[in-house]
C-alpha cells in the first residue's frame, strides 16, 4: 500500500497578495483581470468565495457579485518564486514529487528521506515548514492513492489535514456530493443528477456496464475510484500532454474571415511553440467559447505526426467550420495539439533549387 500526500495551497495567489500587502487582509481579494478588461478571476480569497466568486469566472461578473472586492493584477513571477521555495521543501522529504500546478503537488512518501513510516506526521511537518518559510497555509490530504489524497485535501480547507484510510474510504466517498469528485465537471454532474446520482453512494451502486454505457471510458474510472482503486503513479518527470494557445477577442466575432484570420495567427503561435520544444503532434483540437461563455472543444487526428503550418491550419479550419454554430458570436478561440512526440525533432531544412 502506497502513502500519498496531496498538498494544495490555500487561495494561493490571493494569499501571497495579502502577505505582500497586509492591508488586504479580511477583504475580498480577487487576483486576475480588472472588471472592465474582459479578464477572468485567477483566484480569490476565502472572503470573496462567500459571494460565490470562483476562479475562471469573468472579472465583470465577480465585480457584480461583490462590488467592494479589491482587484489585484497577478504577479506571476513572485508566485513562481514562492512555488520554487515550496517545491524545495517537498524535496527534503521525498524525491517523488509531482507538481500539478504552481499551488498543488502530489508526493509519494512510501519511501522517504526521514525513514518515517507515518505519512500523517510527514504531512504535518511539511505544513509547518511551508508556514515557517512562506507564511502561507496549505491543506494536506493523506491517503493510499492520488485520487483519495486529493479528495482528502479538499475536506478541511483552509489549513486542513485529513486522512483517508482503507477503513474510512467508503464512509467519506459515500457522503461526498458528486461534483466534488475529481474528474466530474459541471456538465457530467448535471447529467448524473438527472439520473438520480447525487453523491458517492449513488454512484457506487451503479453497474459497471451502465456506467460504461452512459459515460464511456470515464465510467470505468468512476467505478474504480469509488472502490478506492487508482493506480496512477506520482510522476516526477512532467511531459506536457498538449500544447495550445488561445485568444479572448477585444470584441465578440461572428464574421468568418475575421475568425479565420485569428485562427491563422493562433496556428503561427502554436507552430512557434512546437518548434521551440522541437516536437510534433498527431492530434489537433479547437476550443470555441461563445459569447454566453459556453465552451465547446472538438478534436481530430492528424494524417501524420507533424508540426507543419499548412497541415495544422487546414485541419483546424475544417474543425472550426464544421463545429462553429455561425449564428453565434465567438468570445474566445483556442487551438491546440496533442499526442505529442518529442522524439521527432523538428529541424529547419534549407530548401534548394533542383540543379
Amino acid at each position, binding site marked *: 500500500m502506497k502513502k500519498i500526500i496531496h498538498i494544495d495551497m490555500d487561495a494561493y495567489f490571493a494569499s501571497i497578495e495579502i502577505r505582500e500587502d497586509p492591508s488586504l487582509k479580511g477583504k475580498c481579494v480577487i487576483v486576475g483581470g480588472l472588471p472592465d478588461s474582459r479578464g477572468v478571476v485567477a483566484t480569490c480569497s476565502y472572503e470573496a468565495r462567500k459571494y460565490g466568486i470562483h476562479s475562471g469566472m469573468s472579472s465583470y461578473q465577480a465585480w457584480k457579485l461583490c462590488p467592494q472586492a479589491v482587484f489585484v493584477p497577478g504577479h506571476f513571477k513572485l508566485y513562481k518564486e514562492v512555488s520554487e521555495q515550496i517545491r524545495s521543501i517537498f524535496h527534503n522529504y521525498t524525491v517523488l514529487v509531482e507538481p500539478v500546478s504552481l499551488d498543488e503537488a502530489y508526493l509519494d512518501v512510501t519511501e522517504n528521506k526521514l525513514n518515517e513510516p507515518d505519512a500523517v506526521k510527514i504531512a504535518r511537518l511539511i505544513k509547518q515548514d511551508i508556514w515557517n518559510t512562506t507564511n502561507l497555509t496549505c491543506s494536506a490530504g493523506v491517503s493510499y492513492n492520488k485520487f483519495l489524497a486529493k479528495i482528502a485535501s479538499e475536506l478541511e480547507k483552509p489549513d486542513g489535514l485529513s486522512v483517508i484510510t482503507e477503513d474510512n474510504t467508503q464512509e467519506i466517498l459515500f457522503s461526498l456530493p458528486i461534483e466534488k469528485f475529481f474528474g466530474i465537471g459541471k456538465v457530467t454532474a448535471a447529467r448524473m443528477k438527472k439520473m438520480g446520482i447525487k453523491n458517492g453512494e449513488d454512484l457506487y451502486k451503479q453497474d459497471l456496464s451502465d456506467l460504461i454505457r452512459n459515460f464511456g471510458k470515464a465510467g470505468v474510472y468512476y467505478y474504480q475510484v469509488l472502490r478506492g482503486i487508482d493506480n496512477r503513479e506520482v510522476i516526477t518527470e512532467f511531459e506536457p500532454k498538449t500544447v495550445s494557445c488561445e485568444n479572448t477577442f477585444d470584441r465578440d466575432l461572428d464574421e468568418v474571415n475575421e475568425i479565420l*484570420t485569428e485562427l*491563422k495567427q493562433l496556428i*503561427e503561435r502554436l*507552430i*512557434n511553440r512546437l*518548434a*521551440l*520544444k*522541437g516536437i510534433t503532434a498527431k492530434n489537433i483540437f479547437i476550443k470555441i467559447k461563445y459569447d454566453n461563455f459556453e465552451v465547446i472543444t472538438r478534436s481530430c487526428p492528424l494524417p501524420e505526426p507533424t*508540426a507543419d*503550418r*499548412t497541415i495544422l491550419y487546414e485541419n483546424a479550419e475544417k474543425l472550426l467550420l464544421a463545429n462553429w454554430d455561425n449564428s453565434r458570436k465567438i468570445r474566445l478561440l483556442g487551438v491546440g495539439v496533442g499526442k505529442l512526440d518529442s522524439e521527432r525533432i*523538428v529541424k*529547419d*531544412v*534549407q*530548401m*534548394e*533549387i*533542383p*540543379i
Partner: protein
Amino acid sequence: MRFAVEKSELIQHIQHLSSIISTKAASPILTNYLIEADEKKGEVKITATDLKITSVVILNAAVSEGGIIAVSANYFNSIISQMPDSVINIWQNEDLLMIQCNKIDFNILCADYTLFPQLSLPNFENATLVNAETFHRMISKTVFAVSTDVNRPVLTGVCWKIMEKVNLMAATDGRKVAEIIVPNTAASATESGEENIDESIFDAPYSEQYLEKIIPVKALNFLQKIYDPAIKEMKVIFERNNIIFGYNNYIVVSNIIDHNYPEYEKALLVELPHRLVLPKESLMQSIRRVALIAPEDSGRVKFDVDKDRFEISTFNKETGEAKEIIDKYEYSGAVTSISFNNKYMLSILDAIDTEQVLIKLGDSKDPILIFNEPPLKNQKITFLLMPLRT
C-alpha cells in the same frame, strides 16, 4: 638587378598581389614573388601565382640594372609596408636581395627563380574590349551567391555568358540565385527601345561566337580589388582553359571551371502571387536586429505578412524569441508566412541598388524573388532565395 621606386607606388600593388599567394601553397616556390627588372623599358614586373590564378603587375621604376629574382612574398610585403614614405632601393647581391630605404637596410635570402612557373605575356592585340565599370558591377551583383562547397566545383564560380545582344552573369549555391543581364552595346540597348547607354558592356558589337565561361570566385575577387573607377577599359582574351584579363597595369590569368553551368533559370520562372514593397535599409536593419538571437545553424528568420500586419520574427530553442512589427510597407496578396536564412537575405538586399525593394512571395515552401523597385532601365537583375522549411 637594381632599381629604385617610391614606397607608395610599390605598396598598393603588392598588397593586392599578396591575396593571390595561397596559404596552403602546393610548392614552397609559390610563396614567393617573381621580380623582374627591365632596364630598357624602365619597368619592374612582379608576379604571384597559386597555379590556378596568376597575376602580374608592371610598375614604372628607375631601373639601372636588369635582372630577375624570387623572394618570399610574406617578408617582402611586410618589409615594404614598414618602410618610411620615401624612395626604396632594391638590388641583388649574389643570392641576397638588398632592400634599402633612408638608413634602413634589409638583406633577404632569395629563392631559386628558375623554379618559378613560367608565364609568357599574352598578346592583347585581338582582345575583346570590356567596359570595366559594367564588368565590376556585374561581379558585385553575383559573386556573393557562389557556393563554397568544394564538392560542387561548378558552383564555386560565376557563370559569364555572352549572347548575341546581352551579357549575363549568374551565380548560385542552390539556396540563392543572383543574375544580372546587361545589353552588349549601347546600340543593342537602343534597339530594345531603351535610351540609357552607359550600362552596356562592349563598345563595339560583339561578333565572336556565343560564349559561356565559369570564372572562379578567387579571380573575380581579385579583379574587384584592383578595380579603379578612373580606368574604364578592360581587355579580355578567352582561351580554351584560361581567361586572361588586362586591366590597368595588371595582367590576370585564371583557369576557368570546365563544366556546363546548371540550369538555374527554371527556378526563376516561378509565378509568385504576393508583392511586398518597402524601404531596403530599414528592412535590413530590422532583419539584422531580430536575427541577433536567431539559431546559428539555420539563421532562421520569419516573415508573417498580411495587408494590415507585417511581422519579422525568430525563435531559438537555446536563446529565446524576438519579433518586430513593420509599419512602412505596401503589400498586395494574401496572408503568408515564410522562413529563410537571414544571412542569405541580407547578402541579397545588400546587392539591391534602389531605395525600395520588391519582394515577391508565395507560400511557405515557395522561393522568394527579390528585385530593385523600380526596376533598372537597361539591366535586368533578379535574386532568388529558397526558404527554410520548418
